[in-house]
């Protein structure tokens, strides 16, 4: 396939599923209008728009800091201007799958920290649950406000090139980040390419903060009318700090650090210029480990001593609920289809990637003999840490992983490499479009009754040629994600 016009001239998708072009080389119907709009554009015109977008991100300080040069240089999170477009039918399928998954994960958390019926019914091994690094004994038997654990979930999806089908790659139900990029990407995109929006009916995403705010307000132990809500951040040096301040501002709530809060008489207060003021709901973006030095890690300087005491007494609500890490453990992931069947009596709408648990001896031997073909993940990690990409790894690295897996099999799972789909992305070095691998992280909000998902989510793109790793630390960027009201 080869296009002869402007920006896309010489473009070929390669052997992967291309989100924009069919295997015959024609634009898919939901991309046809965009191709018409952009196809005639000269690279120099495109480059101009790109610079405009970059400047906008720089001015707003949407950067992350790289400390490797000792001076703390700020880099942009790269943004690619070609959007990822999903027609309504595909999105409806995804939405149904995510809704089902979020409800099941919440039921699982209620059960695990409550009656533990699923363990008694032996649908999932108790040893697997108790050995999760993020299982919190402290949460056992605690009744959480409205029974909600998974207020905010970010669920990573990928499209497998061999089947063209979406799969769930991992669940993030602790403190998922990235939604601010979804909202900012859209804003920048409407400024850089206003004319492209005229041609499409793109579903809006801007209601996320008000929906989250509604859910948080609902949790207030003193009732919604008297609800002081705060967002607890680890502080300015956290890589997601931009997002924390962005969300606080958008929701009109106070952004606090641990040292701004104090617990007195099992009630949480914040320190204001007029004295102490009671806090009812904490949207916390601090990990469980650091929340309360009296309950979890005693060396934590980021948390609030006594916070968990106030939480247990029902004087303050926390979102997300502590202990959620047991549900997004990568070994538990293999059982999510079982959970969906067990709690909802339904078949999973979205499939999971085949997963080998290294602490099962039959799986382990398969993993050890096929290491160069697999991706190995450490179960309690997120963000692309503790991973082995078999096909691209050096021999020594593979052997090092082999040792680690054998000494601590419970800590690892392995999966076949999923050949991710690609979206045309601008390669500024070569000054042309090239297919780059993408994933998709939609953000789901749960109020105990219904799941709300802003249409689309964060499309992360591996900007390095051939790379399958989309994390920003590995040269990944992002794209605006459009869900269309119709099919094209």
């Amino acid at each position, binding site marked *: 396939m080869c296009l002869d016009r402007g920006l896309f001239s010489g473009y070929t998708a390669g052997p992967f599923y291309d989100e924009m072009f069919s295997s015959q080389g024609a634009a898919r119907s939901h991309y046809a209008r965009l191709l018409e709009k952009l196809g005639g554009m000269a690279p120099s015109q495109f480059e101009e728009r790109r610079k405009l977008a970059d400047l906008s991100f720089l001015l*707003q300080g949407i950067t992350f800091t790289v400390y490797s040069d000792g001076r703390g240089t700020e880099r942009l999170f790269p943004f690619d201007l070609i959007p990822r477009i999903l027609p309504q039918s595909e999105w409806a399928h995804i939405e149904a799958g995510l809704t089902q998954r979020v409800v099941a994960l919440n039921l699982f958390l209620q059960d695990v920290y409550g009656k533990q019926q699923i363990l008694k019914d032996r649908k999932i091994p108790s040893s697997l649950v108790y050995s999760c690094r993020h299982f919190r004994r402290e949460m056992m038997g605690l009744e959480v406000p409205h029974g909600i654990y998974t207020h905010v979930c970010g669920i990573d999806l990928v499209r497998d090139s061999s089947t063209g089908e979406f799969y769930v790659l991992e669940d993030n139900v602790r403190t998922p980040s990235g939604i601010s990029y979804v909202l900012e990407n859209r804003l920048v995109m409407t400024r850089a390419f206003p004319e492209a929006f005229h041609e499409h009916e793109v579903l809006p995403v801007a209601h996320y903060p008000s929906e989250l705010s509604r859910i948080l307000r609902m949790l207030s132990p003193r009732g919604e009318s008297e609800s002081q809500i705060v967002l607890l951040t680890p502080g300015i040096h956290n890589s997601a700090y931009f997002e924390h301040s962005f969300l606080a*501002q958008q929701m009109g709530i106070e952004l606090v650090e641990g040292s701004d809060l104090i617990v007195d008489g099992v009630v949480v207060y914040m320190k204001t210029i007029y004295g102490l003021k009671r806090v009812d709901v904490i949207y916390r973006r601090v990990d469980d480990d650091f929340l309360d030095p009296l309950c979890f890690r005693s060396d934590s300087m980021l948390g609030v001593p006594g916070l968990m005491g106030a939480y247990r007494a029902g004087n303050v609500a926390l979102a997300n609920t502590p202990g959620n890490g047991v549900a997004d453990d990568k070994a538990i992931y293999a059982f999510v289809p079982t959970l969906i069947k067990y709690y909802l009596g339904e078949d999973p709408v979205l499939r999971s990637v085949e997963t080998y648990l290294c602490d099962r001896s039959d799986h382990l031997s398969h993993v050890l003999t096929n290491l160069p073909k697999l991706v190995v993940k450490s179960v309690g990690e997120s963000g692309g840490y503790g991973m082995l990409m078999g096909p691209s790894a050096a021999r020594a690295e593979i052997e090092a992983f082999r040792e680690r897996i054998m000494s601590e099999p419970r800590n690892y799972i392995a999966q076949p490499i999923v050949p991710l789909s690609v979206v045309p992305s601008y390669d500024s070095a070569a000054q042309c479009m090239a297919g780059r691998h993408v994933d998709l992280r939609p953000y789901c909000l749960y109020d105990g009754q219904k799941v709300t998902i802003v249409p689309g989510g964060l499309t992360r793109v591996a900007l390095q040629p051939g790379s399958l790793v989309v994390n920003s630390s590995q040269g990944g960027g992002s794209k605006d994600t459009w869900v269309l009201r119709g099919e094209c």
Partner: protein
Amino acid sequence: MLSRIADSLFWLARYTGRAEDTARILDVTFHTLLEQAQKRYGLRWDPILSMAGEETLFRQFYSEADAHNVFEFLAFNPNNPSSIMQCITKARENARKIRDRISREMWEDLNGLYFTLGTFDPKEETAAGPHRFCGRVIFGSHRFHGVTDATLPHDEGWEFLRVGWALERAEMTARLVDVQYRNLLALSSIGGTPDSHQWMAVLKSVGAYEAYHRQYHSPIDPARVAEMLILNSQHPRSIRFCVTEMQAGLRAISNTGPGSYANEAERLTGKVLEGLRYDRIDDILRGGLHGYLTGLIQMFNTIGEVIARTYFYYAAVA
């Protein structure tokens, strides 16, 4: 409002104010000295350093003060905590910590200023002279004030900015008058004649040159210059004007009416302001200008500390 946020707003204002003050002094002094004989340079570069309060630090880098190294030191030097670049960097850090509480426009404006100033090459600018760089800093500071005024709700957070700006200006004007007065009088005592150009430079550095002429309709007279900068009720950089602003800001924060005070910061500010309202310049000069200004500077330091104790600090246990 969280105490930490009030603290950051206060310092955001002080650092942007300090950057502007330093830029003004550098720019005006440099251009005045261009019109003077080279051999007098030494006499006049040192006072700028003492105005900035960083004379000792300067000696660790340079043995003798000249046009280039004073500019480099006060504008760019990363080891000088009061250099313009350091002030803007710290102002931006404070803004970044509270960016959810300031307007998006304020953040983008200050962040843009930070990146713009970062594109200036110290070597090139030092060679070219301070006008281009300082002009950008002064313009940037003015714009930031304007953006703040137009986009931030005028609530207690705005009042902390107002108090920070006023306190920083009051202190800098006091230093400026003190140092220049001593310097120019010293010049005459060793046989030099400080001509009106130097006093003009003092007025220009606080943007009060035209206002002086409108006010006095007379040639430049050192006593009138001091009066203008210390006691004038309307010029936005006079000490009296700044202290009036401080009082208004502090009262708005504590919701205190005229004639009383709610805390030590308000009591001290009120006391200083009464003096400035009823003092006469001739009495001040007779009693010793240096002592008078030193007293004010010490008072401003105390007021800054008391504001912090009243609003920013919290005991570890409530």
